[in-house]
């Protein structure tokens, strides 16, 4: 008896989402890190409203990126260590499908909550009223690229002991275009220039990441499982 592919995909997806929000999962930790790190900027830069408003979008984007990076560290590692990745590799989806499911689960369970809480942090940071909509939109369009690109780094370093720092070194340079266009969109909207160009480029980055991410991750995982 064989289960249809979509059922397998959904099973992995739901499993990872549940794991992210179970005790000790990455979901709550990433969210807490996001909130604490943004407030650190308010302490570090000082409470002048104009300064905070100027850097609000950039700080929220950078910290969202770091929170995403921190949570990606464990994307494949737990499954690799307890051997369930070997089982998943044998599923009819293939490693590419498994990687796609786990990436989607990461985005839904860990990154979407960050996006949802972003307006609150925007308020902390004194973000101008016209910035909220575009901040949410740019995060929505751009953050899937963070999960996708980060998954490649997570897969490459899955068998490396203390791979977290190495992973950051590999992934952060590849995150730069997403960050530039994401913050660019918000800044353009607040400067009343129109942000469609930046949003389109941000979407392009996400689509390229979508085309590469699951396949490169699967190739890297196969390497680790050998």
């Amino acid at each position: 008896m064989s289960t249809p592919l979509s059922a397998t995909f959904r099973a992995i997806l739901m499993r990872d989402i549940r794991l992210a929000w179970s005790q000790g999962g990455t979901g709550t930790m990433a969210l807490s890190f996001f909130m604490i790190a943004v407030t650190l900027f308010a302490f570090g830069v000082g409470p002048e409203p104009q300064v905070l408003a100027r850097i609000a979008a950039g700080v929220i984007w950078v910290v969202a990126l770091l929170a995403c990076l921190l949570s990606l560290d464990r994307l494949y590692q737990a499954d690799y260590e307890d051997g369930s990745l070997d089982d998943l590799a044998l599923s009819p989806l293939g490693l590419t499908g498994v990687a796609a499911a786990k990436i989607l689960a990461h985005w839904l369970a860990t990154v979407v909550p960050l996006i949802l809480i972003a307006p609150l942090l925007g308020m902390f940071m004194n973000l101008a009223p016209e910035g909220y909509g575009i901040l949410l939109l740019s995060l929505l369009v751009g953050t899937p690229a963070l999960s996708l690109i980060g998954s490649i780094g997570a897969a490459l370093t899955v068998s490396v002991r203390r791979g977290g720092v190495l992973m950051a070194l590999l992934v952060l340079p590849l995150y730069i275009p997403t960050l530039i266009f994401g913050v660019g969109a918000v800044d353009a909207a607040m400067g009343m220039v129109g942000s469609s160009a930046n949003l389109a480029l941000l979407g392009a980055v996400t689509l390229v990441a979508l085309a590469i991410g699951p396949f490169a991750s699967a190739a890297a995982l196969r390497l680790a499982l050998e």
Partner: protein
Amino acid sequence: MHRFANPAEFNRLADRILPWAIAVMAISLVAGLYLALIGSPPDYQQGESVRIMYIHVPAAWMAMFTYMVMAGASFVAIVWRHPLAELAGKAAAPIGATFTALALITGSLWGKPMWGTYWQWDGRMTSVLVLFFLYLGYMAIWHGFDDEEKAGRAAAILALVGVANIPIIKFSVDWWNTLHQPASVFRMGGPTIADSMLWPLFIMATAFQAYFVVVFLWRMKLEINQRKLSVMNRAEVYG
């Protein structure tokens, strides 16, 4: 191509190429430096600081060229499992990182008198800086694994993912019309540089290219010999 998968065969080929490459490098470096520093006129706007360009531009070309060599080698390594291709990537990476650093440093030295700033976050500079980080990541991943073979394939995957940055560097000056000037040598409608400056530039580019070939082959031979040595050590211990 698989003929050169045999390290002995490769070493013979490298030994045949090396003397020529060294000769080309020596001659073009001397001629290029003379022309660039003494034999060419100062620019009517930039004055003597235009001479930085004769180092900066070839270094920047080589930074991208070396990455493409690395990416090409990585592709061959992944698709055909060519045993020397991974080593080629490993051998090329530090050379490329050095060229990238050289391009960034000379660029900022030139930028201070010309633009009034050492650094500006414009598209070209930012993307070349990203290229430098990619080189660092590639070299770091080689050290991250205990198993050389796994490290090689992981590094190859990373190098291929990073190729996305190369077109961004090339076209950044067209997409973001900021500080860095657009292409003036390889462009539609021919170069916009005077011949008296174009020749020293090309000769310097030849010298850099020959330098790359020389150091690359040296490093390849070094890597091969190191592998041989570790195999022999292991044979001695376990054999």
